[in-house]
């Protein structure tokens, strides 16, 4: 059995932003579900931790939310990306890629390269 890992808080926010960017308007469960699928079930022990992150992103103005009708006779809170959120995603994405590229380069380095 693969050991599940909890996502780092910052990373989770980025995943939320990207998910909303791709999927448009979505409720909390949908976002969680989506992240789980994409990450191939390795991440996310406590899906509930998603909600504080959503609240923070909303306070930061990156996403907006409103109540909307849900399929099971309940109302659900739907989240969508704002313009500021899109911009934030862009910069975060850029940062992340840069970081990943640097780390990747370090892994590729062999002893003789440094000689």
């Amino acid at each position, binding site marked *: 059995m693969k050991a599940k890992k909890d996502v780092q808080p910052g990373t989770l926010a980025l995943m939320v932003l990207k998910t909303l960017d791709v999927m448009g308007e979505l*409720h*909390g*469960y949908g976002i*969680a579900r989506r992240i789980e699928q994409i990450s191939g079930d390795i991440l996310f*022990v*406590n*899906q*509930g*931790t998603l*909600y*504080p992150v959503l*609240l*923070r992103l909303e*306070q*930061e*103005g990156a996403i907006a939310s409103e109540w909307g009708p*849900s399929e*099971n006779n*309940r*109302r*659900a*809170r739907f989240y969508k990306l704002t313009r500021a959120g899109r911009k934030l995603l862009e910069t975060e994405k850029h940062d992340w890629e840069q970081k990943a590229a640097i780390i990747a380069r370090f892994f590729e380095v062999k002893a003789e390269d440094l000689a």
Partner: protein
Amino acid sequence: MKTLNRFLIRLRNLVTGQRGDQRLREELEDHVAREAEANIQAGMSEEEARRRARMKLGATEAIREQYHAEEGLPLLECLVQDTRFSLRQMRRSPGFTLVVVLTMALGIAATTTMFTVVYSTLLRSLPYPQSERIVAIHDTRITGRSAGGLMTGPRFYDIAARNRSFSSLAILYFDESTLIAGKKLPVYVKGAGANAGFWDVFATAPMLGRVFDARDDAPHAPQTVVLSYPGWQRLFGGDPNVIGEQVKLGQQTATIVGVMPRGFSASGDVELWHAAQSTPNSWGNDRGDDQRDANVFGRLRLGVTLAQAQGDLDRIGEQLRREYPSSDGAWRFTSETLREHWYGNVQPALVALLIASALLLMIACINVANLLLSRATTRQREVALRRALGASGRRVAFQFCVESVLLALAGGGTGILLAFVLTRIAATSLPGILGQSGTIHMDGIVTGVALLISVATGIVFGVVPVLETRKVQLHSALKQGDTRLGGAAGNWLRSVLVGVQVGLSLVLLVGASLLAESLWNLMKQPLGFEPEHLLTVRVLLPWDTTPEAVANFYNDVQQRIENLPGVEAAGQISAPPVTDFHVRGSFNADWLPQVANQPAVSAEIRNIAGNLLVAIGTPLLAGRDFSAADQISTVPPFLVNEALVREYLPKGDPIGHHLLLDGQAHEIVGVVADVRGVSGTIAAEPGPVVYWPANAHGGWHRYFLVRTKVPPEQLAKSIREQVYQSDPQQSVGEIGTMDQLLGDAVAQPRLNAAIVVSFAGVALLLACIGIYGVVSYLAAQRTQEIGVRMALGATRADITRFFVRRAMVPAAIGLATGTMVSLVVNRLLRSQLYGVQPDDLRLYLASLLVLLAPLLVATLRPAIRAGKTEPMEALRAE
């Protein structure tokens, strides 16, 4: 921006109490329902599906906590919560709270008041525009005694003509005179003559009207007068229509042109300024010492430093020494900032008092820390319980800090209120220049600093109990009863605190004893006159009264006073002892070699008439007193004092010798005893004095000294009446007693001693309370240990000795350290001491005894009580 936005949202949530609780619950429910549905579709039973969904969601409570944390401001919420809790704790133990708050308040009040005084005088810029550019310029004799820095008029005008450093120069001389306004009775006023430059140097706008300018200051211009605020109040009842009013000042007509604002005290407590109207030629060729009455101030040009200005003055002084060797040869100019000029004398005392108050604050804080520490120990179970319920160590520590800071704030607030009252009292009742109106007042900065200090002490000493809570062992603390045997941790901290406290108290006690001893030395020394039952009466005539009229007037008043019932003797003198009055003269002596331009004898000159020596009680040691004939002689004889004989004729008989002045030989007919404080302070050794028959010398301003058989105040009214009957145009100035003058003269040393003695007293009390508390606490903590020890054969005396040792070892270390610190710190007092050395061994021993005796009592009481413990009961208490 983003962070600010988020903060604002959170703040709004906190204030409105708005919570997204409902929203979160709904969202979570929706989440679980969907997950469960998905699980059912995957083939699970409904129950299993919901269970799995919940598990996947995670701990709802933790999520809610996190969500809340995102929603509000957790730190602020904790603060609010802890504040409420702390206030409840304070209410629950009012005794403890009261003691802590009062102790803190005492320390803060003392420190704040002293800081206010120091700040008002030594730190805050003086109340004139660019006050740092104002310089006091003194005339100083190169060797020997000066005349209080006073300058002659011609030398002032020489500076004015030759300097390159000052944008304006002020000359100011004090002159009392009689003012007659309208049909009112003549009033004695303390005035000052000033040039137009005076107003440029101090650059303060008048409250009403205008100040005088160069045109008013020109010779023979109509005389103009500017009133000070107190003068305006006393002489004109604060009448705003006073501008333009004509008055008679010293029998000359003058116009009042302005009133200065309250607190403008650039020249002491004068009631008015009039234009000096002098020119470089006003003194003719007379550059002599009897013209030395000018206070001089200058405003530095922009960019000129004090050192540069002093260099400039040195250059001018050198030129004058060469040009006028006979009159100016012995003099040079010195300068200092206005602040040094005014407060330089009191600075060491103020700094010492500030340090003393800071020591008191530290002692108070240590007591509070000790109290907090003891309480933290008794609250270990509470701490353990809270920790067991999940509070983090940091959370508990935070709460304790909040409690300490709250206590400190309450103490600080009370202290500041107290300081406010004390400052108000100090502002009017401090002696000398410190008590001048508008000098000392509290402001936002002082209050802010005081609050900051209280919060800082709250945090620093709040850390102590926090350290204590860190050690809490959950399992042992939660068990009922404390079964530890001896070696309780935290006790070393108590010992250190006790040691420091005792040491600091010793420093204060030594300081107090030094100052008290100085005051005692100062007051008990022989004065050379009898201050009891002695009335001083200021009387003056216009300066241009003819010598005959002067003599007639004073002879008449002398007669009238002598005839009053209750008068034992009366005499006249140009200034009584302990008044700040300087008239110096230089003489040659017929028994000393005569060198051109270097007169051999320099002495203070006092004019006397009437029966002065008997009235003031100064013994005539040799020769005779002045006769009536001496008073009208053209070459009058002199009396000299012992100091003059000691200094200039140590091995001979002065009677029959002559002092030479302007080619005339004045015979010395008598020697009188030294009088202390001839030119001000009674701390100075008496210098040479020459007494001159007043009527022969033509002194138009005098004091009557009247020795009375009845309480002197009773005669004041009838003396005023007699002067009025003698000449209704004249006023009588202040009537006081010699005792009052003496009291004022020792006011500063008395105040220093009183303050430090009271600080030391409080420190002693606090130290006793501290050590008593610690020993009691130790004894209570070790009841069982005492039981065991006694069961194993320890006697009661052993137990008592044990506790005394526990308290006395740190106290002794504290005393040893305190002695060292005293030796260093009390050196600061050196300039305030009189007749005692700062390392006087007697006083150190006395202070040690004074401190040890009550400390021993405070230790013995609880220690003996511990010794009386019944071993069986102590053991059973488990």
